[in-house]
């Protein structure tokens, strides 16, 4: 009945997350914004699968959470490494991967 409301909030959260990814320079905050986007995607998954009365969507959400955990582990390790080498985690400083 209210699925459109849910979906609107999901889209809004996703857009906010994307906005944060594009505007913040602090790698940790960018990372948090990605987590917001993942949460928004999870919300949409649950909305869509609720009608089907099946467990696929729920399982998918669990997978996304696992990926988020893995991502957090590796990503944060990279940030720690970067900080140790350069003393900063401002993503604008890391632009060596280019022509």
């Amino acid at each position, binding site marked *: 009945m209210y699925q459109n409301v849910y979906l609107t909030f999901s889209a809004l959260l996703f857009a906010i997350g*994307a906005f944060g*990814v*594009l*505007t913040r320079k602090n790698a940790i905050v960018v990372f948090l914004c990605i987590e917001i986007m993942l949460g928004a995607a999870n919300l949409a998954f649950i909305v869509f699968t609720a009608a089907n009365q099946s467990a696929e969507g729920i399982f998918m959400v669990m997978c996304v959470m696992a990926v988020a955990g893995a991502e957090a582990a590796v990503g944060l390790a990279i940030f720690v490494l970067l900080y140790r080498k350069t003393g900063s985690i401002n*993503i*604008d400083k*890391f*632009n*060596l*991967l*280019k*022509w």
Partner: protein
Amino acid sequence: MFDLVWLIPVFPILGVFVNGLLGRRIEKTNRSIVHWIACTAVGLSFLVTAGIFLKMLSLPPEQRLYDFTWFTWISAGSFHVSIGYLVDPLSMFMCMFVTGVGFLIHIYSIGYMGHEEGGYYRYFTYLNLFMFSMINLILADNFLLMFLGWEGVGLCSYLLIAFWFTDMANAVAGKKAFITNRVGDFFFAVGMLFLLVNLGKHGIWSLNFTEVFTHASILSPKLITIICLLFFMGCTAKSAQIPLYIWLPDAMAGPTPVSALIHAATMVTAGVYFVARCNILYTMSPIAMGVVAVVGALTAFFAATIALTQNDIKKVLAYSTVSQLGYMFLGLGVGAFTAGLFHVLTHSFFKALLFLCAGSVIHAMGGEQDMRNMGGLRKKIPITFWTMLIATLAIIGFPGFSGFFSKDEILWQAFSSPHGNIFLWLIGYLAAALTAFYMFRLIFMTFFNECRASEEVKKHIHESPKSMTIPLMILAILSIVGGWIGIPKSLGGHNLIERYFEPVMGIGPGKLISGAASHETIAHVAETAGEHASFGIQYMLMAATTLIVFAGILTAWMMYMKKREIPENLAQKHSTPYRLLLNKWFIDEIYEAFVIKPLHSFAMFLWKGIDVLVIDGIVNGTARFFMGCGRMVKTIQTGYVQQYAVSFLFGVMVLIGYYIYAL
């Protein structure tokens, strides 16, 4: 027995593989193994050849033709080329003396190249490869396989001329030989393709000698003439005739046994062999025959004039080779194929002997090649002297020696055959006089009078080792008796060689050529000519030749023994002709100015103008264009993650847009 013909080329190529691949190691452990492998290979080839040859002689003439097909080489539609060997009197005749003389020269090389360091196995590998190619050339039963051998001997010639390639002059000489031969080979290949295509128009896609000669009569005489002349251009390069003889004198830069084997006895006679093999084609074209005869006669005379003034012992012999090859072509050109081939045989004996003797002299003198620094060697190296004297008497046509019979036969045919005339005879006659003169000049300058070498060299003069002198003696015997197989009827002989060649002359292997039948067969022509002209004229010509030969010897004796100031006076009095001769008529310079320079500048234009500017310009321009594009586009790759994210987002938006549109 004929089935074993494939063994003949197999032995030398095995030698090439063993020596070429393992030679360096073998040489380090024991260098005698290297030359024993090479000599055994050629010796076995010779034995097989001799076996087949004897077997052939025991058969009646009509059974002496055998086409052995080993396997198919090229197969395209109805066109097939096989690796096949033709056993017939002509090929076995050539093969006999090629493997025989080749074997002797292999033996001789053991002694001559004994001091060679490092390149010993290389030398014998090349020599065996040459034998393989030459045998292929001779035994081939089709034009293409023959061309393979033809190219192979050219390659070996190049490799061996430039054998001591660390010396620039040798490398240049090798290059000259190779490129000059390439010019001829081009014409040869064009002639071959021309023949193939024109026969193909009549549905005969074949290069097999038998088939080509059987069907040659369907081609128009004009085409035959063109084909024959194209082939003859190839022969002028290989057999050192005007205008492409220039490489042969320079080819003397190689080791002397190589000069003897390749540039005197065997390879350079390939052209003669080819024309003789294609005698059916040539007899169908009187124009081509005329060209062959005139070129041969002119070369014989022209080269002899140059040989008069040369001081390098090997150069004299080189020009004499060119001259003798001219005789052979004169013989072929007047339709006396047998006489030409007879001269090939005798020439291979005495010219190989001459070169080997020259090699022995050079060996004794420690590398000295200038005759002005020799003299008086008669007592010091007697075996070399006597064998060389025999060879000289043979080449000048001293009565009784081999050259007498073959050269007289050619001159007689030039005079009497329907294709010949008195001018051709006269040119050959004069060349014979010159030959006698310059050959005895060589003998006198080298072996008589006082020794002009430095004291240092004098001490070391010694007779060559047995491995060198034994081949000399064998060849000396052959130089004397080799001509006896062709004693003409007028002198009470049976002219065995004429009868021997009858099956291949004018008659294609196996059958009579219908087209050629309207012409009379060559053997027949020769015979009728011999019957018609009385023996009287023949005796007169012989006497005249003998007389002028003696005159030549006498002049040489006067100038180089009796009154030795004459040559110098002559040179001063007639300085222009002398300089002209000494510089070989300035032919090299003329070629340089009129052929090589324009070609070179044209090539330079093609290189700098077309290749560098246009072609490289297009290629590099294309690359530069895309490099410029890349340089513009690469700015998109900033390295900033967030800018990437924007483009990523943009892509997602495009996808979303697509799905909304698809809804």
